[in-house]
């Protein structure tokens, strides 16, 4: 994985010093809250319901054992012993003191981590495929391109006061595991007929109150023009994105209002101009970065046999491991949607400091010292020898990290909701827990199979409810929490947006409604159909009838 050189380290250290100075000025009174707010946000520091919240970047979701361990230590030293992994592959701490924030950033910098641009109206942390470098279906490893973009976007002086936040994802396989087309810019690395690598540019996707799937604006941007093309996309947005209404300020609205062809024309014009300026890093820089992501020396002659005589282990292997590109290896998902022996569900995405450190150790021991954070709020050990799976599983069981439910109805994405978030209208976590508990019996969840359920506590859609096979949106109805149900969303290759079923429900009502929807699926399922497939085939009507009839 990528390692800082003295330049990268100096930049991150400078950022810590800058924020320390800004924080001091705020506390001493020469910097007002109005002026400080965007600065702290661009260092990941929010003011939330109960305290300050710090969002730490995990660039493209990849981190080392030492970095993961530091995340656990920070949870103990500065927070209340836990952290929350987010849908953009970051981690959040909920109980931060402003006066500690510069020290936390300094601690992070010692392991080449930071919180740069994890919030604010700027280019955010670049996300990617959590299986990068391990997936059998990728054209190339997308992370070097994400790192190239990370450096370009860090402190870019022209783009630090954009109309609104700006999220970029980079993937390199046909299967989209990063919700790429629901980003402001999505890049898919592809190979053309001549065998050259380039990027498809999708621009103008997003969730929020106006969800849109990003259209393709360029089918092949050569690999030596990625930065220049991105800069053109951003400049057009910075100049012409709406600033009169924050709900219409995302680039998706600009692309929609200008029309795809006109936006593309403006980008191409700006691109032609920027190409004359030589702002693109040389290919040697990309090669330098790629060197950090070269395949490790896979052990050869490994067996693909796994002893599945332990039934719990067998179920975990079936649910939580994925095919690896190298023989004898597997990709392991550690679910952060735990359900304990008594059927009690945990908080989606949360992990204790001890669990974080245990995962760090397991990453070091079993996965070539590399971990991933997924947009589904789980952790991945990308390179585990199949022969080690049983030993790894036993260690996960001891740490309450062995729940076998990947992509099942209990593997719920949920935003922090009204329990933590100052923007939320309703709580998300208790709803997630109640649904997970309703389907806690493994046989029940297994029968339903793949079903991606996503919950947001407000229209901002941090819980990706538009993209859930089943989505739930919490709203405020005259001071009480109310939950709307959506069906048919999907963030994968065949991206689609969910449709609201009808009137909303209270907390218990929404759990019942979800169960009714799954019953309709089970009654109508044909062959190997997933919930989403059946929904797409039979449509909304039978579901509506079961839920409201």
């Amino acid at each position, binding site marked *: 994985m990528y390692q800082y*050189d003295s*330049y*990268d380290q*100096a*930049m991150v250290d*400078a950022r810590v*010093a*800058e924020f320390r*100075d*800004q924080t001091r*000025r705020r506390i001493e009174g*020469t*910097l007002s809250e109005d*002026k400080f707010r*965007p*600065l702290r946000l661009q260092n990941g520091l929010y003011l939330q319901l109960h305290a300050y919240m710090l969002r730490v970047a995990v660039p493209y979701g990849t981190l080392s054992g030492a970095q993961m361990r530091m995340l656990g230590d920070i949870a103990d030293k500065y927070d209340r012993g836990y952290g929350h992994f987010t849908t953009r592959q970051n981690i959040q701490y909920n109980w931060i003191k402003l006066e500690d924030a510069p020290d936390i950033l300094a601690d992070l910098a010692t392991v080449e981590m930071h919180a740069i641009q994890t919030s604010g*109206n700027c280019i955010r942390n670049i996300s990617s495929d959590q299986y990068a470098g391990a997936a059998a279906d990728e054209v190339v490893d997308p992370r070097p391109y994400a790192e190239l973009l990370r*450096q*370009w976007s*860090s*402190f*870019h*002086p*022209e*783009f*630090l*006061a*954009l109309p609104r936040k700006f999220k970029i994802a980079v993937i390199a396989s046909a299967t989209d595991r990063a919700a790429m087309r629901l980003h402001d810019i999505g890049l898919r690395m592809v190979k053309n007929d001549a065998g050259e690598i380039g990027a498809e540019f999708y621009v103008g996707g997003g969730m929020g109150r106006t969800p849109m799937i990003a259209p393709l604006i360029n089918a092949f941007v050569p690999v030596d023009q990625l930065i220049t093309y991105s800069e053109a996309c951003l*400049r057009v947005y*910075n*100049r012409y994105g709406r*600033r009169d209404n924050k709900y219409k300020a995302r680039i998706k609205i600009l692309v929609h209002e200008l029309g795809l062809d006109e936006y593309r024309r403006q980008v191409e014009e700006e691109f032609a*101009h920027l190409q004359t*300026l*030589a*702002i693109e*890093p*040389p290919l*040697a*820089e990309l090669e*330098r970065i790629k060197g950090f992501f070269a395949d490790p020396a896979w052990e050869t002659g490994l067996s693909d046999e796994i002893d599945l005589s332990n039934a719990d282990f067998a179920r975990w292997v079936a649910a939580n491991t994925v095919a690896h590109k190298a023989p004898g290896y597997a990709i392991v998902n550690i679910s952060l949607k735990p359900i304990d022996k008594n059927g009690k569900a945990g908080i989606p995405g949360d992990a204790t400091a001890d669990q974080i450190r245990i995962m760090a150790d397991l990453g070091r021991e079993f996965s070539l010292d590399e971990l991933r954070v997924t947009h589904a709020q789980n952790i991945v050990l990308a390179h585990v020898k199949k022969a080690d799976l049983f030993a790894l599983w036993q260690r996960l069981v001891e740490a309450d990290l062995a729940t076998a439910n990947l992509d099942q109805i209990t593997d719920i994405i949920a935003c922090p909701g009204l329990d933590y978030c100052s923007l939320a209208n309703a709580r998300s976590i208790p709803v997630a827990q109640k649904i997970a508990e309703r389907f806690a019996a493994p046989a029940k969840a297994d029968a339903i199979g793949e079903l991606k359920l996503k919950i947001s506590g407000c229209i901002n859609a941090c819980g990706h409810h538009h993209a859930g096979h089943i989505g739930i949106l919490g709203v405020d109805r005259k001071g009480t929490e109310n939950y709307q149900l959506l069906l048919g969303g999907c963030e994968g290759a065949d991206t689609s947006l969910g449709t609201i079923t009808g009137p909303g429900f209270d907390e218990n009502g929404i759990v019942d409604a979800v169960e009714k929807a799954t019953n309709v699926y089970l009654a109508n399922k044909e062959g190997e159909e997933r919930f989403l497939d059946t929904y797409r085939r039979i449509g909304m009507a039978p579901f509506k009838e079961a839920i409201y009839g």
Partner: protein
Amino acid sequence: MADVQFLFREGAAVAAPTVALADFGADSNATAVVIQPGEDARALLPHLDRLALVEVTFPAFTDGRGFSTARLLREAGYTGELRASGDIGVDMLSHLKRCGFDAVAPATPLDAAEAETALNVWPQVYQATVVDGRKPIWALRHGK
């Protein structure tokens, strides 16, 4: 109009009165113009030769359109004074400079010591903005 507090170019700040972009016709004698965030600075490109001052306003520091305005004027070869004015805090100074501004006139004067610290935060830069004359880190890495 606020005074120029920071000048990153030789000589004195241009004293000529500015006219609005809309009044800056091809046949005007004006040598100084002021651009608001929503205006297209490329309208000035045919007239760069006779311009001594372009003032780019920042009515709100959260509106970053002026950064693009500055860069594209410099990219087109403008060499006169490029002044940022308005709601400007010390933490913007380095970014303004990197986008090609060489004069800053904050609506409220800034603390000189704080400004000095803020201007010297970054040891290096990641991007080639070209217009600031700084070599980006990738160029240093590869001896460009």
